[in-house]
């Protein structure tokens, strides 16, 4: 658990972070979102003491971080950044091994851990372990960056716009990957982004920041339903709010289920695990008001009616 109480950061006389209080519970994926210069990155970097806070206190599992040696603290916190910061003179395996080696793990355990992480991030160990960062694509490098952050098996993971520089397709696949990994490893993650769609997709809680202050913190659904002010509403995309909300809900939450699955269907159809936003888009495209819903094997398991979307309670 991470607790920030009345934390401020002054650069010269400017207040980059202004008296914020925030508690991130264990296992939570908390996303700090806001425009650039709102203090979200500064907040993140104060947690691992890359930046010293000017006022207030930060505690991790009840311990004030100023009582912990900064190097010890950082070895216990995973850290991934937008430009990856991979060490260009080291192989992928050596990059991932940084923290385990700093922690003094025996060589064999380090080797096993590196292999385990390469597999977790879906990078074939035989192919990637010996490569150098310059031989990787942007997406692969970011996977290695995430693997490196996870290597010491930290309880906490800090991620500073890790997918910000990637193309939309790669970004989405890495977002899915992060959600999958979080299902498996259940870390306490603080994730910084300026992309509200990314925040809505990943977060269990979104913290909206503006001018160094926290404007609103809520679950994605609650944030969409009740934005605190015009700034949050604007960040949520104004007129596209309806679509964003639909993007958070799964098709099977509104479909009429069939008594038992029928054989495979052809033509326009939607998967039960897809979002209502995707369903809506399909309906618009095919100009239809209902869609067969299929499972992973392609068997029909239900029907989604446009009416059901429209009559859904707010």
């Amino acid at each position, binding site marked *: 658990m991470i607790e920030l109480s009345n934390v401020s950061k002054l650069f010269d006389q400017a207040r980059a972070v202004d008296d914020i209080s925030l508690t991130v519970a264990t296992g939570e994926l908390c996303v700090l979102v806001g425009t650039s210069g709102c203090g979200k990155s500064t907040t993140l970097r104060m947690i*691992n003491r*890359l930046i010293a806070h000017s006022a207030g206190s930060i505690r991790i599992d009840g311990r004030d971080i100023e009582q912990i040696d*900064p*190097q*010890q*603290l*950082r*070895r*216990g916190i995973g*850290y991934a*950044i*937008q*430009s*990856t*910061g*991979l*060490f*260009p*003179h080291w192989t992928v395996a050596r990059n991932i091994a*940084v*923290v385990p080696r*700093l922690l003094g793990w025996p060589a064999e355990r380090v080797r096993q851990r590196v292999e385990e992480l390469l597999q977790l991030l879906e990078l074939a160990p035989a192919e990637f372990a010996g490569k150098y960062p310059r031989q990787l694509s942007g997406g692969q490098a970011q996977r290695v960056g995430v693997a*490196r952050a996870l290597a010491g098996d930290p309880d906490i993971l800090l991620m500073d716009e890790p997918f910000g520089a990637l193309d939309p397709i790669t970004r989405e696949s890495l977002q899915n990957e992060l959600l999958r990994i979080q299902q498996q490893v259940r870390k306490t993650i603080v994730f910084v982004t300026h992309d509200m769609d990314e925040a809505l997709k990943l977060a269990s809680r979104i913290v909206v920041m503006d001018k160094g202050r926290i404007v609103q913190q809520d679950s994605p659904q609650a944030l969409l339903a009740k934005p605190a002010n015009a700034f949050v509403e604007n960040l949520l995309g104004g007129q596209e709010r309806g679509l964003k909300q639909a993007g958070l809900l799964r098709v099977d939450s509104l479909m009429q289920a069939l008594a038992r699955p029928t054989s495979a269907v052809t033509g326009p159809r939607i998967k039960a695990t897809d979002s209502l936003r995707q369903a809506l888009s399909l309906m618009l495209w095919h100009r239809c008001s209902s869609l067969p819903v299929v499972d992973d094997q392609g068997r029909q398991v239900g029907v989604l009616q446009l009416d059901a979307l429209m009559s859904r309670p707010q």
Partner: protein
Amino acid sequence: MSQPALLRGGGWQPLLWLALLLAAALGLAELEGLFRLIEPDSRTVIYGRAAFIDLLGSHVLLVALAAGVSSLVGVGAAIMVTRRWGADFLPLVSQLASIGQTIPPVAVLALAVPALGFGSGPTLFALMLYGLLPILRNSLAGLRGIDPAVLEAARGMGMAPLQVLWQVELPLALTVILAGIRTSVTINIATAAIGSTIGARTLGDPVISGLVIGNTAFILQGAILIGLLAVAVDSLFEQLQRRAPGA
């Protein structure tokens, strides 16, 4: 595939030049007939006041000593001013490094004499001073040219400042630092020869002596050896740079 690692990728080149250099230092004296063609009228055509191999030895010693000291001082100073606590000195040091570079080596040598007298001492001093500048300049460029994200990551992973320096900064700056040492040494091989004019014992001796008494053969013997030494050392550095981790 069965080639030893040292010889792969042109690793044999410095060895070839070194062999040529040694052969010349030991064998030039045997080529009297050849040099007689150039200087048919002179009494002697082979420089005889000292053996070439001894001159080569003292030349190399002088340059190596200077390179060692100026590398230590230059890299050390660059490391110092790129730390947070030394950052105040950065503008001063980087300005010194670029201004110093504009003074020709001969001037440094000439200025060293009134201060230190004649002999190897002032030559060594001038070599160290002049050789320091390219090393300092390149070390600064190398250390400051590292992607800030890499340093941020290193700190964020929990590396101690010395670990960041040894494991990340120096390896990544190494090719650029080596290039600086290479420039320094190459310049100093030539400058050391001029040291003969102020009484240092170097491969410049036959050249100076040849100039004074008008013996082209002497000049040629010194020039051949200095040239071979410069080429051999340069190709050695080229190999070193190619093998640096950041390359």
